[in-house]
C-alpha cells in the first residue's frame, strides 16, 4: 500500500512573476534563506522561518533573472539576468548593493556555472556572445581564463556544469547544446575530451554528480537521459527514463546523492531515486510550468527541503524522504 501523494508543507507567494531559479542558503547563519530570481528582474530573499520575503533586490533593470547563486563563505550573491549581465551583490549587514557586474553578451537562457577554487577565488562559466561560445572567467578579478568553442556546429549552448574532478589537475566542464549533444571539456587544456549525442532535441538541463561520475540530462521530449564518465573521461550513455509528459526545465540531485528531482513542463515535480532512477513521487501542486527545483543545504538532514518555482508565480516547499536521514 503506497502512501498518498504528498502535499507541500508551505508555499511562498507574492513574487508576482514566474520564478526562473532558486537557490538555498541554509548551512550557516541564523536564518535559512531561499533566493529566487523572477521573470521581472527581482531577486527575492525569502526567510524560511518567517516564510516572508525579507528583501527584494532589483538589479537587472526589469529583465528576467535566470540564475542566482551565492559565493561560498562570503556574503556575496551572484545573479545572471537577460540583460546580458552577471551581477555581484554585497549582502553583508543587510545591504543589497551591486558590487560589480560582468557583461556576457549571451542572448540565450543558458545558466552560468560557478566553481569554488579557493575561499577567495571562483571560476564562473557562462555562454558567450557567439552561438557556441562558452567563456570562463575568474572571480572576483574578472580575469578571462579561456573561451571554449566546439569544432562542429552544435547550435546554442543550453546548459553548462563546471566541476573539479578528484583525480586530474584542472576543472572539467560539461555542456549541453541545441542539437542534443553533450560535450566534456578540459578547461586547462581547452580541449574537448568527449562528445555524445544524448537527445534528438535541445538539451534543456543537465546535472552531474562528481562523486559517482554520473549525470542526467533533460530535454523537451519525454525521456530523461542518464550517462556516466568512465576512467578515460569518456561519456557513456546509459538507460533513459521515460516521463509521462514531455519537457524538463531543471534537474537537481540532493546533497547526499540519494534523490533526483526534475522540474517538469507538465506542472509537476518528479522525484527519483538517484542510484537506479526509480520513480518515487510526483509532486502536484503548481498550475503552470515548473521552472526550477532546488534541494536545501540544511546541516541537519531532517530539515532538508525541496523547493520548486513555477511560472504560476509561486514557490512550493516540500519535506520529502527525510525519514531515513540518519544515514545521510
Amino acid at each position, binding site marked *: 500500500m503506497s502512501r*498518498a*501523494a504528498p502535499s507541500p508543507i508551505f508555499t511562498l507567494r507574492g513574487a508576482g512573476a514566474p520564478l526562473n531559479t532558486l537557490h538555498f542558503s541554509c548551512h550557516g547563519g541564523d536564518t535559512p534563506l531561499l533566493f529566487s530570481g523572477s521573470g521581472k528582474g527581482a531577486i527575492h530573499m525569502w526567510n524560511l522561518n518567517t516564510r516572508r520575503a525579507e528583501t527584494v533586490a532589483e538589479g537587472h533593470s526589469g529583465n528576467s533573472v535566470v540564475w542566482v547563486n551565492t559565493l561560498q563563505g562570503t556574503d556575496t550573491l551572484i545573479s545572471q539576468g537577460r540583460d546580458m549581465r552577471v551581477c555581484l551583490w554585497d549582502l553583508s549587514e543587510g545591504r543589497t548593493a551591486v558590487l560589480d557586474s560582468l557583461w556576457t553578451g549571451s542572448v540565450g537562457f543558458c545558466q552560468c556555472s560557478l566553481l569554488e577554487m579557493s575561499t577567495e577565488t571562483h571560476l564562473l562559466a557562462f555562454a558567450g556572445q557567439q552561438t557556441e561560445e562558452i567563456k570562463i572567467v575568474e572571480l572576483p578579478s574578472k580575469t578571462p581564463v579561456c573561451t571554449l568553442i566546439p569544432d562542429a556546429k552544435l547550435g546554442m549552448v543550453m546548459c553548462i556544469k563546471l566541476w573539479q574532478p578528484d583525480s586530474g589537475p584542472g576543472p572539467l566542464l560539461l555542456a549541453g547544446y541545441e542539437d542534443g549533444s553533450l560535450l566534456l571539456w578540459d578547461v586547462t587544456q581547452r580541449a574537448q575530451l568527449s562528445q555524445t549525442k544524448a537527445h534528438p532535441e535541445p538539451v534543456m538541463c543537465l546535472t552531474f554528480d562528481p562523486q559517482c561520475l554520473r549525470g542526467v540530462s533533460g530535454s523537451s521530449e519525454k525521456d530523461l537521459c542518464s550517462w556516466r564518465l568512465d576512467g578515460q573521461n569518456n561519456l557513456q550513455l546509459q538507460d533513459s527514463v521515460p516521463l509521462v*509528459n514531455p519537457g524538463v526545465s531543471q534537474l537537481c540531485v540532493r546533497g547526499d546523492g540519494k534523490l533526483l528531482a526534475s522540474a517538469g513542463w507538465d506542472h509537476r515535480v*518528479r522525484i527519483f*531515486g538517484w*542510484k537506479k532512477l526509480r520513480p*518515487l*513521487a510526483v509532486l502536484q501542486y503548481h*498550475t503552470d510550468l515548473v521552472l526550477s527545483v532546488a534541494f536545501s543545504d540544511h546541516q541537519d538532514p531532517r530539515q532538508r527541503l525541496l523547493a520548486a518555482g513555477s511560472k504560476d508565480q509561486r514557490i512550493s516547499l516540500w519535506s520529502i524522504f527525510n525519514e*531515513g536521514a540518519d544515514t545521510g
Partner: protein
Amino acid sequence: MDSLAPHTEVRVAVAQCFRTLSTSAEPEDIISSLQTLHSFLDEGPESRSTPDQRAEFSRAHFTRTLQFLLSNIQADWLLGLSAAQRTDLWDGLFLRGPPEQALVVLMEGISELKASTSLDLLISITERFLLSGRLAALLWSSCMQTAPSDSPQLRETLLARIVALPDLTANRLHLKNKPCFCPQQYFTLLASEMLTALERTCQALKDGTDCSLIFVAQTLGKVCVQGHSGPVFAVMAPRLSVCTRSDMVWQRVCWKLLQNVPQRWMESVLTGLVQAVRGPDAFGRIVGNLVLTNKKAQYVVTHKLLLLQYKYETQVLRTVLGYLAADRERRPLLLQVLRALSQAWANPSAVRHTPLEQQLYVSKALLLSVNLLRDAELQELRSELLQCMLGGMQSHLDSSVVRIRHMGMVVGECLSARMDLNNTKLKFEYDQDEETLELLSLMTPISGEEPEEEPENGVTSPQETSEKTPSTQNASCQNKSKSDPGSDLDSDDEFSPYDMSADQEMTKESPRYLRDCLETLISSEDSVRVELSLRVAEALVRKNVFAAREISVQLTKVLLHTEDKYSIRGFLSLRQTTMVALTVTDCIPVTQYLTTEFYSMNYGLRQRLDILEVLALAAQELSKPISEERSPSVGVSSCTDLTLYPGDNPVHWRQVVERRIQSKTKRLTKGATQPPAKATPNRYAPVAGHFFFPLLSNYDKPQVTFDLLGGDHLVLGRLIHTMGLFMHLAVNAPVAAQMGRALLDFVWAVRYHVDQMVRRGVLFAVCSVFLSMPSQNLLVDLNEQLFETRTWLADVAEGDPDEDCRNLAIQSLVLLDKSLKKQLQDQQALDMET
C-alpha cells in the same frame, strides 16, 4: 407468672438506672448504672444477664434507653466522664444494641439537634456505626426475622432512614458533611453490606436455616428508585455474577431477592441491573426466569427497555435480547419481542414521528434479535418479517433524512441476508459511516464467552493487557528487522514510493475564450475538450465580465442541461461554480432565467435542486463585500481538491445549516450586525427581489412532472430553505420587509408538513425573517400574524419529534422576543421624548 418475672425485673432495673442517671452526681453511680444497661446487651458466657432479660431489654427498653441518653446529652455527668469511659459506656450502647433501633434513634437525634458538640458526637457515632458494619448486622437481623416486631410502620421508617441517610446528613451538616455520608461512598458501602447479608443468608441456607430477603429486597428497590442504582450495582453486579456462576444457592438467593422487590420499584432495579451486568449470561443467572413469573418485570424487559426508552447502550440491548434467547422457556418472549420490534420498525408513522435516535435504537434491537433466531423459528416468522421488511424499507427510503434512509438500507440488507430469500440479497449503495458500520457489526455475533471474564477484583485485567502490548510490539519489531537488510543492498529501496497514480498525461491546451467553451459544451463529443472547457469556464467568466455578459443566459442554459457523460472528476462542482459565477456576473437575466426554469416542465429533481443551490450560492457571494483580489488560484485549486459535490454530501447539508445558525447566534451575542471594516456597496440588496419573488409565484400549481406540495417535498424543503437564505442575506436591504411578509405567508401553509426537512426549512425561514426584518416592520406589518406564529413556535419547541426543529423553534422564539423588546423600548424612548 414466670414469664412476667424477667419483664418486671428488667423494667425495674432500667428505671433504677434512669433515676440514678438523672439525679445522681456521683461518677461511680453513673458508671455503674451505665454498666448495668450494658450488661443487658452483653452476650457470651460472662454475661450477668439471662437471655430472657436480654431479649426483653432489646424489645422494650433499648429505644427508650437511647432516647433517654439523647435527651440527657447536655447533662453534667456526661461531661464528667473521661473520653475513654464515654466511648466505651455511652457510645457503646449505640453501637452494640439492635442496629435498627439504634439507627432510627440516631437519625432522629441528628435531625433534631442543631449544630453543636452534641451533634458532632452523634455524627461521629453514626460514622462509626456505618464503618463498623452495623448496616450489615441490621440487614442480616432482618433476614433472620429477629427484628422485634414486623410492624409495617417501623419497617417503612427504617427503610426511609437507611435510604435517606445521605440526604439527612447533608441537610444537617451542609459543607461539613463527612465523606462516608456522601451518596457515592454511602451507597457503595450499603451495596457491600447487602452483599454481606446475602452471603450470610447463603451460609444460613446451607446450614438449613430459613431466611427472609424481603427487607433487603425492599432496601434495594428503594435505593434504586431514588436513582442510586449506579453505585449500588457497580458493586453488586460483578460480585453476584461471579458468585452465581458456580453456586446454586447463590442463584436461588438472587432470584428470591429480585422476586421480593416490590412491584413499584421493580423497573428501576431491573434497568439498573441490566446496565451493570456484563453480558446476557450473567443477567440470566442473577434474574432467573423472573420475566415469566412477574408481570411487571416482563413488561419492563420485553417492552419498556426495547420500545419505549432508547437511552441505553447497545450492550444493554445485547444483554436483554440475549437473556430472552438463552432459555427455552423464555424463547417465546423473544419471538413476541421480535414481532413487536418489527412492527415498530416498519410503522410508517413511527418513521415520521419518532426521534431519529429511537429509530436507530429499534433498528439495533431488531437486528440483534433477528440474529438470535434459530433457523426453524425464522421459518415460522418468515412471512411476518418479510412483510415488515418490505413495508419498513419503503417508509424508510421515502424519508428525506439521509440517516433514516441509510438505516433502512442497512436493516433491509441485513434482514434479507438473514432470511435467505432464494439466495438473493438486497444490496444498496451507501457511504459507510460510523452508524452504518455499527449496525452492520450487530449481525456478527460476539462470541459468548468473551465478556464473561469477570475477574474477582479487577486485578487480572491489567496484567492481560500488559501481556498483550509487548506481543504487538514484538511483531512490529520483527517487521522492521525484516525490512532492514533489504535496504542496504540498494539505496533506492530505502525510500518507499508515494502513490503516483495521479500522474497522468497532460491534456490538450484548454480554451482561452468563453465562446469556445460554450461551443465545445454544446457540440463537442470529445471528452477531453469538454472537461477542459468545464475546468476553465469559471475563471474565464470572472476574467472577462463583458464577454460573459453577452452569453451568460445561453451558457447557463447549456450548463443546466449538461450531463456528466464522461465521468469528469468534480463535474458537479465545476458546473455549479461556473453557474454561480455567471449568476454573479450577470445577475438579473440569469436569475430571471433560472427562476423561470425552476417551475417549468421537463426538469429532473436534481436540476431543480441545482437551480436552488446555484441561486443560493450566488446570493451568498453577492452579499459578501467584494474582496480586492479574488485570486484565480482559489478557484483552480478548489476544483482540483473539491471532488465531492456539496449537494451529494448529507453531512454538508446539516453542517451548513448548523454553521448558519451559529453564525447568527454569534451575531446576536455581539449585539447588532458588526460594522464591516470598510464600507462597500452591498451588491445583493438591489437584486434580492430578483432572486426571491419569482420563486414564490408558482409553487401551488402542480404539473405533471412536478408537484411541490405533493410528493416532491424534498424540493419543497430546499426551496423554503433557500428562500430563508435569501431573506437572511437581505438584511438591511430596503426590500427586506416585503420579502419577510411574503415569506411568512408562504411558509404558513406548510408549517405542519409531515417531512421534517420541510419543517426545518420553514423554521429556518422564520428565523431569518425575524433576523433580517427591521423590528418596526415586524410589529407594524405582521401585527396580527405574530401572535399566531408565537403559539405555533411554542408548540413546535415543545412537541416536535425532530430535535433540530425544536432547537430552531426555540431560536426563533428568542429572536422574536429580542426583536419585539427592542422595538417596544425604542417606542417608549420615542414617547418619552415627545
